[in-house]
């Protein structure tokens, strides 16, 4: 049921992109997202798309695998395209019964779909090439300056780690409970939406009960191992910016500025 989601799943290979500091990659992703919102034209998107292709190649990721990550989003992409196609006022270029396709609608639809697709690709590149640990370490470090304004940087990172640690465990448990309930005649797949939602109750209740028990036990286990928040904590893996990191950020910033100014 829950297999086959490849979107953003870490691919542990050796590559110059994998070796970059997680902070470099987080900053780069943010830059890419910003420029995707600034640019409004095919040439600009083409260039950004080429850039992303270049990064995929440098990261030694199979292109097909990366693109497959878009599949869970295909419905959203399609709806985006269709909405713009039919709902934009302008010069008519085609007619499907009561629905009118306009030139402006066509343009905007393709652009928005491209933007969304590239947005997803850019962010999935981050998680495809960065292990969850390095990602949380990087986030914690980047958020650290905001501690002074009350942002709980360490706690957020810890929450992310624990979530990542327990997602597979909870999936397994969900499947186990589902099987057990199915054996007793429960039906999760057919019936009206309201009926199906109702059928989920005997699945969700034990799942929540067990999740709270887990949380309780985990908290005690953490305390037993001297956990007392981020204060004075050290790390097994420390982060280290290298020349490659500075170079990567510099190049990307330059590219982003050029694209944003020109297009």
């Amino acid at each position, binding site marked *: 049921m829950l297999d086959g989601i490849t979107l953003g799943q870490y691919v542990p290979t050796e590559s110059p992109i994998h070796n970059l500091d997680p902070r470099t990659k987080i900053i780069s992703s943010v830059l890419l997202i910003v420029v995707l919102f600034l640019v409004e034209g095919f040439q600009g998107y083409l260039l950004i798309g080429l850039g992303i292709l270049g990064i995929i190649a440098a990261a030694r990721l199979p292109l097909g695998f990366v693109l497959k990550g878009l599949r869970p989003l295909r419905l959203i992409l399609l709806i985006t395209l269709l909405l713009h196609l039919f709902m934009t006022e302008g010069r008519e270029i085609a007619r499907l019964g009561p629905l009118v396709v306009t030139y402006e609608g066509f343009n905007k639809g393709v652009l928005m779909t491209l933007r969304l697709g590239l947005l997803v690709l850019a962010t999935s590149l981050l998680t495809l090439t960065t292990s969850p640990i390095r990602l949380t370490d990087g986030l914690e470090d980047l958020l650290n300056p905001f501690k002074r304004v009350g942002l709980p940087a360490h706690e957020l990172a810890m929450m992310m780690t624990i979530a990542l640690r327990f997602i597979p465990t909870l999936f397994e448990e969900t499947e186990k409970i589902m099987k057990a309930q199915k054996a007793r005649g429960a039906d999760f797949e057919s019936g009206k939406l309201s009926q199906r939602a109702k059928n989920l109750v005997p699945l969700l209740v034990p799942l929540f009960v067990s999740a709270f028990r*887990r949380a309780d036990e985990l908290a005690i286990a953490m305390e037993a191992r001297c956990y007392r928040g981020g204060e004075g904590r050290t790390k097994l893996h420390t982060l280290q910016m290298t020349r490659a990191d500075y170079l990567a950020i510099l190049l990307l910033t330059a590219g982003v500025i050029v694209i944003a100014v020109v297009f």
Partner: protein
Amino acid sequence: MSRLLEVRDLTHSYLTRTGEEVEALRKVSLEVGAGEFVAIVGHNGSGKSTLAKHLNALLLPSTGVVFVDGLDTSVPENLWEVRQRVGMVFQNPDNQLVATTVEEDVAFGPENLGVPSAEIRKRVDEALAVVEMSEFATRPPHNLSGGQKQRVAIAGVLAMRPKCIVLDEPTAMLDPKGRQEVLRTVQRLNAEESMTVVWITHFMNEAAQADRVLVMQEGRIAIEGSPRQVFSRVEELKELHLDVPQVTELAFLLNKAGLPVSPELLCEEELVSILVDKLAG
């Protein structure tokens, strides 16, 4: 043998949500020497976990005192020292692993203690080698077997360089193979590194491996002694609804039937050789 754990007249009452007091421990006194392997048995609700949690200050005494390596656990300044010296391993292997890889999880304790990175690396590698999990260092913990997860949990405790490990029913959720793995690992630690061990279990054959067995009943220590002494008290144990290792029970019955067999037998070979001698003679 120097004294590592000392519990004196310990009582502990929980306050339930309805405001009632549940007395889980009643005047428990106990000493554990450095390097000793002590097993605690007793049926559900007899207070084993409550006692265990007092040994590293997860719970504090309602009355009485607990000393760890001479440190009073109820003194707030001693809290982290106490928790570093007494490591805890819990029953559910899934609910005590925090991190997304094995090595990060083992590093969790030393990270909390503020140990420098290079030293953490060293401790993690050593601890994983001791529990024979080195090859799994960079794997996520969720697809390990139960026995492997418990060994990772033990490594996580070892990386804090404790003097004592308290294991609260560490084998209860494991298959026989996993149980063996975990018990062997802890026995080896006890024999080779003189690690002090408090092993809580409801498997009597595990308790039979200890230097000393404590039987708990309604918040008290009901029987205490060497495994031979404790398990030879078959009738009392039955009254407490506890099992006795099969061999011991057989020896007990033979002894009662008038055969000159000591009722303190724990291992099958011993009984077999005695019986063979008797039959031959």
